């Protein structure tokens, strides 16, 4: 479908905190009110209400893959539920053009007493496939899930991975116009995850609009063309996946990735952090950073690492490197105002990295307090693949080829 797409316009969703105390006494008035739509104004927050989504807008057109990231409870799944019409927004509108395929809780419709075969038809129908369509795709579904010999066994005898694989496989064979995926890339074992990811990637590359919610940031970075960072129901960042992931990892504030959270009130205060190069840099390049701060009093002898820094991969969230002023042989005792210059060779694969500074012993996690941070985008430079640059040195020491391989052609 050429004009398939998603439009999410200024969506607000109200939920209630705590339990709803409804008793039967309220039944008739409530149903009547609902039937004639005399609900209280949707825009008023009553006691105990809160906004699960506040003014969220985005569009996804063919060719775009939107990744939604954010902490647990930020509102990511609420966005997907509004998209799939499970919930109705309190305000605003969301419209989806084309048939929507939702990979959300892919085994939700499974009944444990039914066999795999019966469940495929049931789950297919729940997801909107006709029995004829399911029958046509049945062999593909079973083969993709890899449960062939157990297809006539009740699902309650399946391992959890098997039923999840079967569920994913059904959903992956839906042929939708728009695809919505919620945190299901972690289904099954490694091989299946790769296969599932490959399937989604091929669908996304074919131009189908995709919305993906995931905590696997490297997957988001790899698959998505756009990203949306949601914090407590609000859009905190909207743009390239690298920017959103970087902000998510650095705790999220300023748009350019520089966090000016200066640390004060300590013997050591950090004020600013500047990146000399303009991002992006190439893999293997050297970047320069300037950190300025103050040492208020003479430091206690126990303060081993007054200023430390770390480089965190935005894709995985892992710290790829960390060090400190003491490790670099700098004594800040009684320095007053100071500026540190730091050079780092970015021997890392392409991606977004967050350089974070902190006061205290970050290496050993003792009393570390976060200081300014900056995002560095690294592009593919030396074409290195993997997680670490091992500086390979390779020499051709000896060549001994079998004579038959290179010998003169026999007449």
């Amino acid at each position, binding site marked *: 479908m050429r004009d398939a797409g998603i439009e999410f316009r200024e969506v607000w969703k109200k939920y209630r905190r705590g339990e709803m105390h409804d008793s*039967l006494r309220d039944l008739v008035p409530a149903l009547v009110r609902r039937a004639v739509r005399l609900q209280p104004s949707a825009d008023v927050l009553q006691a105990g209400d809160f906004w699960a989504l506040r003014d969220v807008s985005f569009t996804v057109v063919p060719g775009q893959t939107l990744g939604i990231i954010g902490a647990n409870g930020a509102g990511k799944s609420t966005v997907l539920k509004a998209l799939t019409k*499970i919930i109705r927004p309190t305000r605003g509108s969301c419209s989806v053009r084309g048939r929507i395929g939702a990979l959300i809780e892919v085994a939700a419709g499974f*009944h444990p007493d039914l066999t795999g075969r019966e469940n495929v038809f049931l789950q297919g129908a729940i997801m909107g496939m006709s029995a004829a369509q399911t029958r046509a795709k049945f062999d593909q579904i079973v083969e993709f899930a890899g449960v062939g010999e157990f297809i006539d066994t009740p699902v309650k005898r399946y391992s959890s991975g098997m039923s999840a694989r079967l569920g994913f496989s059904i959903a992956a064979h839906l042929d939708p116009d728009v695809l919505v995926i919620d945190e299901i890339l972690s289904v099954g074992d490694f091989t299946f995850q790769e296969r599932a990811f490959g399937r989604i990637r091929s669908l996304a590359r074919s131009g189908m609009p995709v919305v993906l919610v995931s905590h696997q940031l490297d997957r988001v970075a790899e698959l998505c063309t756009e990203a949306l960072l949601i914090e407590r129901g609000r859009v905190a960042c909207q743009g390239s996946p690298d920017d959103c992931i970087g902000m998510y990892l650095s705790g999220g504030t300023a748009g350019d990735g520089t966090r000016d959270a200066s640390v004060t009130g300590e013997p050591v205060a950090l004020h600013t952090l500047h990146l000399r190069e303009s991002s992006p840099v190439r893999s293997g390049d050297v970047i320069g950073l300037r950190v300025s701060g103050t040492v208020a009093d003479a430091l206690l002898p126990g303060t081993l690492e007054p200023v430390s820094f770390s480089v965190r991969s935005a894709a995985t969230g892992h710290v790829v490197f960390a060090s400190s002023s003491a490790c670099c042989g700098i004594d800040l005792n009684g320095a007053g105002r100071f500026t540190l210059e730091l050079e780092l060779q970015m021997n890392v694969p392409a991606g977004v990295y967050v350089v974070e500074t902190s006061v205290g012993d970050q290496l050993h996690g003792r009393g570390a307090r976060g200081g300014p941070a900056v995002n560095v985008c690294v592009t593919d430079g030396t074409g290195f693949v993997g997680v670490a640059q091992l500086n390979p040195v390779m020499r051709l020491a000896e060549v001994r080829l079998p004579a038959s391989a290179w010998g003169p052609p026999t007449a």
Partner: protein
Amino acid sequence: MAVSDRSIPTLDSSGDAQSADRPSITRDLAEAARDIVQSRGLLYQLALRDVRIRYKQAVMGFGWAVFMPVVIVLAGCLVRVALVRGAGGAVDRLTLAALAVKALPWAFVVGAVGFATPSLTNNMNLLSKVYFPREVLPLAALLAQTFDTVVGATVVAVLLLALGVVHLAALVWMPILTLLLFTLTAAACLFLSCANLFFRDVKYIVQVAITFSIFFTPVLFEPSLLGPSGARLVMLNPIAPLLEGLRLSVVQGHNLLAPLAAHPATAGGAPVIEWAPWWLAYSACWAVGALLVSVLIFHRSESIFADYV
């Protein structure tokens, strides 16, 4: 405190913008009907699931479909025998046929309402994860019960043949009465499942109501036993004319367009009206009206199911 209505358009999530302002009953009903027709494949699969899981790992299998009506017939025989001892008369083959003819539809109503009422809350994980027209869940429970009833009906048909109770009027009236009963039950299923989603105590009330409603419904007795005013009162129950109509047409071969009066055994007593044609119209009004109202309520509250479940 309130934000003005003008600044915030309350649009439908489906995208048709003109809908929210003026709710139109006909449009909502048409929408609900279209949803149900479009998801008939899902309805079939869900009904199939309900039927399958009812008989999987069950020793008696399809025997259960016959079991419930048989129990009701036996209970009815017991009541009859007790009545005969007190007031005279006899338990003959017609009484047995009448009991069977009324027990089966009653078991259908009881079973369908019992299964459909918790159908939405039992499928909570589906409601909050996948979108589909929610009407299919109670309707699938209804269809699964219908399947049981069809199995039971073949047994009743065999019984009627064996008792030699065969009337042409049955062929005319039975489909009409069955359809009305089905409609009425569908309405109850939709309304009660929806109500149970918002108020979980509905499920318990339904259980109690099912248990005691057999006293207010002429299943084990004929309304004429209650005397002239009692008969009229019990016929206010919309199911009563349908059950009585089934008994009169199938067992007695009575044409339901004609009234029927029974003369009491004691001389001089007022005649008891056993059947009046407008009773059928009364039940039909109930069935159609209840279905329209419950579909409307269900369809309009559907969009907030996931918030409340």
